[in-house]
Every structure is written in structure tokens, then in C-alpha cells.
């Protein structure tokens, strides 16, 4: 079959077999009301401080706004983009918050995650409004700070930018899903041992998330290398790259 005929065939197949994307955050109704409120309360100060940080940096550095646009949109798209993982036979989404934490700062990354999750809950039936606090905590806070911390640790250990970014991407993904597991286990373990439930849930995520975290690590590292080559001044401004690099 020639390419000119193959393309419309594939297009026909795609158009005739639409499938809704599946949500991959904690869904509406899973967290009991008390726990849902708890995570809102816990996440709120981080979001508030993040807004403050964004305002400050915007005033100091006007170039911060387009960076915010790039990585804000990236987190939104990444976190509702289901990626098939063949070895697990299921799909999941990257977090993206490790990358945004490196370029925007971890607190600003929390804000970006919060807005992304809110839009997904409102329009994409992804996650939920009552679970917004919990999802913000796991993806926004735990994902951002773990990714940022892993990156900084990598730099302290003299790893190059790619591998430091790789660590950030992997950590952000795995810790995000640890956060999800933690929240579910905490709220729902009942009479079962908390640690047992936590371990079961987290291990259940791993066949899908480990391969995906590696992909996220490669993407994060690759983007940092790209910025290093094309706009090294950005990384110097962030104090993650020396003059000689």
C-alpha cells in the first residue's frame, strides 16, 4: 500500500475509533470529606507563597513571564497526557513539575500545578474539585520539591546538567505517585496496617510509573541541555550553571 493510501486509512481508523482519555489523578469522591479538606488546608499556604514568589520575580525579571508560560502550559499538557506503557499494559501521565520547579522555582511550580489541576477538574473530568487539594499536594508540592531537591543534589554531586535534570524528572514522577499512595492509604486504610496499604498501592503504580519516570527524566534532562545551548544566561541567572560550563 502506498503512503498516499496508508495515511487516509490510518486517519479513518483514528476518526472511527475515538476513545476518551482516562483520568489519572485521585478521582472525585475517593477521599473522605475530612481528608479532602485537610489536604486543601495543607496545600493552601504553598500556593499562596508561590503566588507571592511569582509576583516578586515578575517585578524583578520581566523575562520570567514567558518562562512561566512555557512551563505552565507544559505541566498542564504533561499532566493530562496519557502515555501507554507497553510493559504494564496501562497508561499514565508524567508530572512535569520537576522540570517546572527547576526553571520557575518550587513554590511557583506549586501554583502552576494547582492551576493545571483546577482546569483539568473543571473541564476535563480529570481528578476532581474535592480532591484538588490532595492532588495539588502530591503533584504540586511533593513533585516540585522532590524534583528540585534531586536536581540540586545532582549538581552538588558534580553531575552534569543532563543527569541532574534526569534525576529531577525521575524523582518528581515517583514521589508524586508516592504522595498519591500516601494520601489514599492515610484516608482509607481502615483497620488494615497503614504501611501495608501504602506499600500495596505504591507497588501497584510501579510497573507503569517506573518506565514513565525514566522517560520524564530523559525529557527533563534534554530540555535543560537545550536551554544550556541556546540560552545559558537563563541557567546562570538560576545559579545552576557556572560561567565555565
Amino acid at each position, binding site marked *: 500500500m502506498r503512503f*498516499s493510501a496508508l495515511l487516509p486509512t490510518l486517519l479513518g481508523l483514528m476518526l*472511527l*475509533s475515538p476513545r476518551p482519555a482516562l483520568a489519572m489523578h485521585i*478521582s472525585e*469522591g475517593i477521599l473522605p470529606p475530612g481528608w479532602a479538606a485537610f489536604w486543601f488546608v495543607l496545600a493552601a499556604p504553598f500556593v499562596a507563597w508561590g503566588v507571592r514568589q511569582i509576583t516578586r520575580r515578575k517585578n524583578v525579571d520581566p523575562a520570567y513571564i514567558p518562562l512561566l508560560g512555557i512551563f505552565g*502550559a507544559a505541566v498542564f499538557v504533561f499532566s*493530562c497526557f496519557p502515555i501507554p506503557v507497553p510493559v504494564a499494559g496501562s497508561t499514565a501521565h508524567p508530572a512535569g513539575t520537576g522540570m517546572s520547579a527547576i526553571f520557575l522555582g518550587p513554590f511557583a511550580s506549586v501554583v502552576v500545578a494547582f492551576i493545571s489541576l483546577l482546569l483539568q477538574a473543571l473541564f476535563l473530568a480529570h481528578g476532581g474539585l474535592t480532591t484538588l487539594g490532595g492532588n495539588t499536594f502530591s503533584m504540586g508540592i511533593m513533585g516540585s520539591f522532590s524534583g528540585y531537591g534531586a536536581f540540586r543534589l545532582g549538581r552538588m554531586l558534580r553531575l552534569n546538567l543532563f543527569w541532574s535534570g534526569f534525576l529531577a524528572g525521575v524523582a518528581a514522577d515517583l514521589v508524586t505517585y508516592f504522595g498519591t499512595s500516601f494520601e489514599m492509604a492515610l484516608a482509607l486504610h481502615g483497620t*488494615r496496617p497503614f504501611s501495608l496499604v501504602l506499600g500495596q498501592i505504591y507497588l501497584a503504580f510501579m510497573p507503569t510509573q517506573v518506565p514513565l519516570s525514566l522517560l520524564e527524566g530523559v525529557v527533563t534532562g534534554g530540555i535543560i541541555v537545550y536551554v544550556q545551548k541556546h540560552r545559558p544566561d537563563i541557567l546562570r541567572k538560576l545559579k545552576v550553571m557556572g560561567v565555565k560550563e
Partner: protein
Amino acid sequence: MKRLVLAGLFGLLLCASPAFAQEEEKPKWPGVDETVVEKYAKDLGREARDPYINTDQGDLLLFLFALAGGIGGFIMGYCWHKVFVAGKKDAERRD
């Protein structure tokens, strides 16, 4: 044109085949919300409810995902140009 029509018909026939219909009965590639989150929540006594704003109706959700992806891509592209094209020139001028 004849090849396009034949290719389209081929696609239709393939979609109507029993193998394809059988595939619909057992969804493949489930999200981790089904395989992990909702499964364990159900085992532990909680079930997910429909979203308060339920856009998962027909192809509406597919449309919204496509729209969101398009808007997100536009924003990334526009801001990428600001940073890596226009911004790069500004940085070079400053240097």
C-alpha cells in the same frame, strides 16, 4: 481519488471486523486511575463518583482534550519564541 476511496473503505471494513468489535468489549490500555486508584479505593470501601462538572459525555471529552492540547501547544510555542528567538536576540545585544 480512487485510491483514497478504496483506502477509506478498507478502513471502514477493518473497523467493522469482529476482531475490532471484540477489542471494544475489553478496553485495553486502562489508566492507572482504574488499575490502581479506583481499584484500591473500592477495595478499601470508597468509590469514585462522577465529576461535578461531567464532561465525559460522548465525544465532548475528546473535543475538550484536543482543544486543551491545542491551546497548551500554542502557549508553549508563543512563549518559546519569546524566550529562545526574540529573547535570544535581546540577550546577544546586551552582551
